[in-house]
């Protein structure tokens, strides 16, 4: 009874760590690592490309235009009043 239990335990303990040591499995492990590395490298390379070529300039300009146009529209009435009020600065 005790011997039986021991052999069972021995088989389990021996089998699992040995699996990776077999030649076939080692190759698959290595290829998995290379696939992972390629994927990772590709992802970082891709993300690097995107961030470098990101068209942030036009977006910023559009935002500025929107803000300024809003401001100019708000100030237009006051500007017209200024022209009326200060002919010494804006008159002929």
């Amino acid at each position, binding site marked *: 009874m005790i011997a039986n239990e021991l052999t069972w335990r021995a088989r389990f303990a021996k089998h699992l760590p040995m699996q990776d040591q077999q030649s076939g499995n080692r190759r698959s492990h290595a290829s998995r690592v290379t696939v992972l590395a390629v994927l990772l490298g590709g992802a970082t390379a891709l993300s690097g490309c995107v961030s470098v070529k990101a068209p942030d300039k036009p977006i910023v300009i559009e935002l500025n235009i929107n803000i300024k146009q809003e401001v100019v529209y708000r100030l*237009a009435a*006051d*500007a*017209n009043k200024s*022209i009326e009020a200060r002919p*010494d*600065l804006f008159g*002929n």
Partner: protein
Amino acid sequence: MTGLIERKHNWRSLVLAGAMLGLVLPAAQASAQVASPVLAAARASGEVGEKTDGYLGFPGTPSAEVRRAADELNIKRRAYYAERAAAQNTTVEAYALTMGCQLIAKTKPGEKYQAPDGSWRTRGAEAPLRSNLCPA
């Protein structure tokens, strides 16, 4: 006695103040209405024009007199823009740009103004070329 003297004094100062007011007020009104004869002539001849940024500019090479008068007015304009910008919680540049829009819109045919691309144009009967930022 003292009351009489005081009254006399008050009368005299009142008359004096009245005379001073009469002298000062027309002068102030005159300076508020007339810009500068030099600039008025330069504007009519196209020696100065309205820039997009709210200040006077020179389409060509101005005479020293015109340049001095325009520079002086631009300094006064900037001080006024700063005052209004503070009152409107905005920047001097934004207020000045808005003034440029409105001043170019108010130019008369024959006068010079600056188009959005920076080139100088002569105002005709049609609407002036203005930045897309300008209100209608």
